């Protein structure tokens, strides 16, 4: 069973529908026991980092998520929350991936939010990115982003480089929205579903 953490964010329905299109049923839940027992866990989220952490804390899920051993995929804000902290509202977050999420700087020709379809520069032999090349585009919509570091398996550039896909042990995160990235996004979700438990 796949659990989608009910963090109260806004794109939860889209993630569930995307999994349904792949023939996978999921359970939207905030129940620690169900989340711990799930084969895989998705941490979605649209909204702000302070709101996201507040919701996880209110539901007693901070330690639950930190302690998960099965494959976990953070999407958008869910990915940002994997870092140590966010500049957005000066929010301490889950601390699974080192680094601090910061606001993307705007400049002439570079509008923020970073909104639209962009390409990735990825590390070879990343199972999550199997089947993609440098021309594959994914849909991004965000104003804050995590830094590129040792746990970045793919970066993206919008004025400045930032972490597009991160991985540490069983935890992965994507800044873009696979559920809204057409066939490429569906493939990424499939790759996640095929990661060994």
């Amino acid at each position, binding site marked *: 069973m796949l659990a989608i953490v009910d963090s109260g964010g806004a*794109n939860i*329905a889209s993630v569930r529908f995307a999994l*349904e299109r792949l023939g996978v049923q999921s359970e939207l839940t905030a129940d620690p026991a169900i989340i711990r027992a799930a084969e895989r866990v998705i941490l979605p989220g*649209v909204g702000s980092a302070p709101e996201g952490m507040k919701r996880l804390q209110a539901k007693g899920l901070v330690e639950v998520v930190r302690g998960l051993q099965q494959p976990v995929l953070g999407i958008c804000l869910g990915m940002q929350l994997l870092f140590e902290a966010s500049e957005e509202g000066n929010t301490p977050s889950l601390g699974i991936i080192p680094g601090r999420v910061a606001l993307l700087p705007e400049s002439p020709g570079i509008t923020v939010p*970073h909104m639209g379809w962009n390409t990735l520069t990825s590390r070879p032999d990343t199972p999550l990115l199997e089947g993609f090349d440098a021309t594959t*585009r994914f849909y991004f919509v965000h104003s804050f982003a995590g830094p590129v570091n040792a746990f970045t398996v793919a970066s993206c*550039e919008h004025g400045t480089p930032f972490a597009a896909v991160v991985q540490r042990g069983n935890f992965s995160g994507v800044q873009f929205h696979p559920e809204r990235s057409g066939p490429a996004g569906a493939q990424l979700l499939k790759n996640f579903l095929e990661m060994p438990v």
Partner: protein
Amino acid sequence: MLARRIIPCLDVRDGRVVKGVQFRNHVDMGDIIELAQRYRDEGADELVFYDITASSDGRTVSTEWVTRVAKVIDIPFCVAGGIRSLDDARKLLHSGADKISLNSPAIENPELLGHLAAEFGSQCVVVGIDSRAENGDYLVKQFTGDPTKTRGTRWRTVDWAREAQKLGAGEIVLNCMNQDGERKGYDLAQLKLVRAVLTIPLVASGGAGAPEHFRDVFRDAGVDAALAASVFHSGAIPIPKLKQYLATEGVIVRP
């Protein structure tokens, strides 16, 4: 590099897609889901659904068809029409919409933009501006879905765009009403003016009639996305051909 976006706009009335000229005389263009799927298959980068009479009728977009769209569509979509409160927005976002667009209600209650941005993030808060050239200036209009209810506002377009950004909008869609349905090209002068005062993405709307118009609006007005309706609905400009053309003209697009 980030690709410029091509966005078909589906004007919705009574659950059907319609199209009028200069916001008038609406004709039926087909079923919402069928058209949405067609555009997804053709390579549209995003879809916008405007419930064009919701605001003037005093209602909100129906979550029923928003859910139906969200189930079948795997590209982002935005919905607009009579969104007046955090609650309206929450229902639509929870139904699967990626963004919500506010027009008249944002003018009536600008603080709402700040509340929406704080709750959901500014990336899903779009402000649609209906703008008309009058007396050598560009002015914001309201309730444009129904010509008998359309009226002026206290805002100059440039000032309202700047204010909306300050309050929390994450994107502006500028509908240039003089051009709408005329197919003579986007209003490059007006779009350039508004582009210059914004740091958030700007979407051009109104006037697309030929592939060159898309090239011009990306190259000369520097917009992030171009929205069009009738040229896509009628098949006059197939999206795959448009994207091929733009790529040969040096515009970065998603193939």
